[in-house]
């Protein structure tokens, strides 16, 4: 994919897969090319999703792009509803179910981050995460308590309040 304007940075030194070529549409001009990223798996959290994978996403995020770049796409959603209800639920970015592998209902599934218009981020929990991330042992304790500890999503939600 071409990136206009961008030649002369250290990216071409740090990322050998980035190439500079002569622009075939404008001889004498150079342009940077970057390869598309293909992901094996994408996890995307939607506001609402239908069983066929059609879902409504946060319009400020690039989740739809991520889904289209990935082989397996797992959508969790605040609520699973029928497809017509997804199409009526806007505003937001609609993602076609064509791109989606599986859908699961997970209320507050974005915790400790937010779903705009549904719930805010959990600033206290994020502060706890940031503090734990500074230290290897504290981070392992965080993972044990919040990630590997709870037996399921409901138990996690109960733990974080």
């Amino acid at each position: 994919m071409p990136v206009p304007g961008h030649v002369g940075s250290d990216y071409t030194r740090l990322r050998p897969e980035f190439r500079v070529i002569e622009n075939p549409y404008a001889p004498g001009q150079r342009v940077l090319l970057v390869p598309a990223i293909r992901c094996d798996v994408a996890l995307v959290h939607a506001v609402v999703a239908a069983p066929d994978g059609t879902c409504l996403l946060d319009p400020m995020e690039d989740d739809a792009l991520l889904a289209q770049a990935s082989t397996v796409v797992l959508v969790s959603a605040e609520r699973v509803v029928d497809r017509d209800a997804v199409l009526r639920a806007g505003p937001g970015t609609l993602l076609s179910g064509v791109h989606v592998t599986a859908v699961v209902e997970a209320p507050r599934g974005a915790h400790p981050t937010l779903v705009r218009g549904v719930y805010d981020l959990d600033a206290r929990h994020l502060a706890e995460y940031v503090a734990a991330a500074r230290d290897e042992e504290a981070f392992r304790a965080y993972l044990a308590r919040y990630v590997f500890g709870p037996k399921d999503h409901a138990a996690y939600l109960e733990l974080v309040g």
Partner: protein
Amino acid sequence: MTGYTVEELMAAVIAREVRDGETVAVGTLAPVPAAGVLLAHVSHAPRARVIILNHPDYWPFFGGSKEFYDFAQRGGLDLFFLSGAQIDRAGNLNLIAVGDPARPTVRLPGGAGAAMLYYLPRRVIVFRAEHSPRVFVERVDVTTAPGAGPPDVVRPGGPWKAVTPLCVFRFDRARAQLVVEALQPGVTREELQRQTGFPLEWAPDVTTVPPPTADELRLLRTRVRAAVARAYPRFAATAFAA
């Protein structure tokens, strides 16, 4: 005592750069430019189109930041704002790493769209709340976004000015050089040079920035503060006086 905060001063300076009718965008982690652009919007630039990333009231797109980047690549932006962990005399920005990028002293968050957004908007204002020799360096350790590009690369725009608590630089595009255009109120040439890691070049007509006016401060502390709080609640709680 000056009667205003550093953030209020920088926001006022940035606001004065916004022209009415322009399309002006503010990226992520940029509360001071957001305050400046909103100040312009509620005063002299009511017809500016204002885009603020992560702001629920100033985000016009439905297709994520991809749509925003595509819009910028098409030439949709008149004015944008960037910063750098290091900024050098040639206007190069470093958002990748301090030290050798293979074994960095500090691993920085990365450039995101900076390397493209530095040239596609017609004007880009660099902002940084810390003006010190470790920020304003002779040569950045890693160039995320170069101030100037080779002549055979299309650059519709580029760096325009740099705003700090101590001064305003303008960017001389032909020579790829930051030039001191104005000192912030109360700052001396000696202090500015002491806090800058490269020998300063001075415009022939260096001036002093006019301090924020009573009107600017009133708007900043009322309407702008309330609007900024929708995207930057902690900033809104601490950056404004009174």
